[in-house]
């Protein structure tokens, strides 16, 4: 019995240690963000120091500043999520409640487009965007984020709709509701929690997206990914500022992500794991 408790204690301690090691880089970034640049760039790391908000101030004020990029990130993430939902909800509604022989095929086709690597379509999209003047354009970028998240949204919304008994839609049919009335007054209120978590997941993925931001934008439509990437040649000069900007970029998503864990599993594995 004593031996058993000893093992239990060790395993628990190990779990804590692992959690700490995994979280440490984030913690270190957080600490560095509150240091002065001199304190941040030392051979012997400072664990105890007088915290300062100086780096955050610099991150906001220097150059275009954090807000310019944050605004682009927010607009592209929010709009792409909303447009994605707007496209996904009717599609998922049709497939969930009015399935035909081709529904399974359509759904699988949509899901499969998610697995086409972005580099596979990068070049034509870049060239077409260039011709249409959509390079470094926030709406061009937003459209790409929408494309990226649409299969996921369709699938998630579909799976939440599937959880609603078909009888309810038929009851609304018989009660005299048309498709729009059924959708707005019966289905959407019922699926609201699912829709919210689907949207949350899409928001997180769009905010963190970096491939399209790095290749398609330069400055005016640049997102936080581009802003942070601009520190890549800083070589120790702006570690505190870089950390501050990173904290501002990552913190909201980590918080949202903690709320969205379960939905994340369901969404990212396409329902294989719930």
């Amino acid at each position: 019995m004593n031996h058993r408790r000893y093992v239990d204690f060790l395993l628990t301690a190990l779990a804590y240690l692992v959690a700490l090691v995994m979280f440490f880089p984030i913690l270190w970034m957080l600490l560095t963000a509150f240091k002065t640049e001199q304190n941040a760039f030392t051979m012997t790391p400072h664990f105890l120091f007088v915290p300062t908000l100086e780096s955050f101030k610099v991150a906001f004020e220097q150059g275009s500043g954090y807000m310019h990029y944050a605004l682009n990130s927010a607009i592209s993430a929010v709009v792409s999520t909303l447009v994605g939902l707007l496209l996904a909800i009717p599609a998922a509604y049709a497939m969930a409640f009015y399935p035909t022989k081709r529904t399974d095929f359509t759904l699988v086709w949509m899901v499969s487009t998610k697995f086409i690597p972005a580099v596979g379509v990068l070049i034509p999209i870049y060239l077409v965007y260039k011709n249409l003047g959509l390079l470094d354009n926030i709406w061009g970028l937003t459209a790409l984020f929408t494309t990226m998240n649409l299969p996921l949204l369709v699938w998630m919304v579909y799976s939440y709709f599937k959880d609603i008994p078909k009888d309810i839609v038929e009851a609304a049919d018989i009660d005299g509701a048309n498709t729009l009335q059924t959708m707005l007054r019966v289905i959407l209120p019922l699926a609201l929690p699912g829709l919210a978590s689907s949207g949350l997941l899409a928001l997180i993925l769009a905010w963190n997206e970096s491939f399209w931001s790095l290749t398609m934008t330069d400055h005016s439509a640049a997102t936080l990914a581009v802003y942070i990437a601009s520190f890549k040649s800083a070589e120790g000069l702006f570690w505190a500022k870089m950390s501050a900007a990173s904290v501002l970029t990552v913190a909201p998503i980590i918080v949202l992500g903690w709320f969205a864990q379960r939905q994340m599993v369901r969404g990212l594995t396409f329902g294989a794991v719930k």
Partner: protein
Amino acid sequence: MAIVELKHVVKNYSGKASDATANAVDDFNLTTKDGEFIVLVGPSGCGKTTTMRMIAGLESISGGSIAIGGRDVSHVAPKDRDIAMVFQSYALYPHMSVFENMAFALRLKKMPDAEIRTRVEDAAKVLDIAHLLERKPRALSGGQRQRVALGRAIVRQPQVFLMDEPLSNLDAKLRVDTRAEIVKLHRKLGVTTFYVTHDQVEAMTMGQRIVVMLNGKVQQIDTPQRLYEWPANMFVAGFIGTPSMNFLRGQIGTDKRTVADAHFSLDLRGPRGDVLAAHGAAEAVVGIRPEHLSYLAPEDAYNDNVLNGTVEVVEPLGSVTMIQVLVGPHRVTAQIDSHVSVAMGDPIRLRCQTEKLHVFDASSERSLLQPPAA
């Protein structure tokens, strides 16, 4: 309140209507009376629910036509058929209060608020759910939900009610009570009603006419009493009545009046003997209901149409006792007085009421008896 007419209605999921064996519903014909209570009954997969869903418009029809109150609605959307439906799952809107559930259809019709309130409250009073109007469905018991589902149907004042196994989610006691209430409600409102169930007791107690279905085909449409007395075939005979009718297959004797094998011999006299004589086949199936068999004491000298067997199972039900008797290879169920004491393994003699015997064609399984005109 309307007459519903179904003419040669066919449902086929494969799209090949010519292949009759693949039809989920095949050549369904029925004309209701105004305000009639029709029960569709049969084992699962027999097409009864599909038939109802076609009347509702939730399923398209592959052939034939459906008319409600003289209007052809074969290709009319459900919402324009002026019908109301009670679902097996009740299908209440979980996010709406009881009041809003019942009012939903009326709101969609843009009915004035005051009239909606009157109608909903009237219906709630009839169903005894007036005190639940502000609750959400999840705060209700199964029986209460069932009433709300009924209420949602009756506030509409539709031409036709459709009920898809509305009692199957209730416990046994509540089911019996609600059964009677639905019948009372129907007598009061007088709306033509279609009621789907797989439970033949429910069908017998509720239906004014019953449609017995099997494998997409209508087996018989008749009143409960006539279904019991004059089943059209062995399926209906076995499906209606509990316990099921016993069937004994045997050779038709040279006198053309007897059906027998090595273990039993039943003499059919009178009109039954006549149809057998006219039938001319070598074999026939005799049907006898358990309640038409009775116990004969060993010393009883009665010896007309008696089955000799061995008691296999004894099931005392209190008022009566069900026994299963082996007559050679045939297993026969009999309902006997509960004060008769029999035990497993006892030899037993059972008297058949000759005037209650049924006789069926051995290959087509159809009844040979001619029912009297209704």
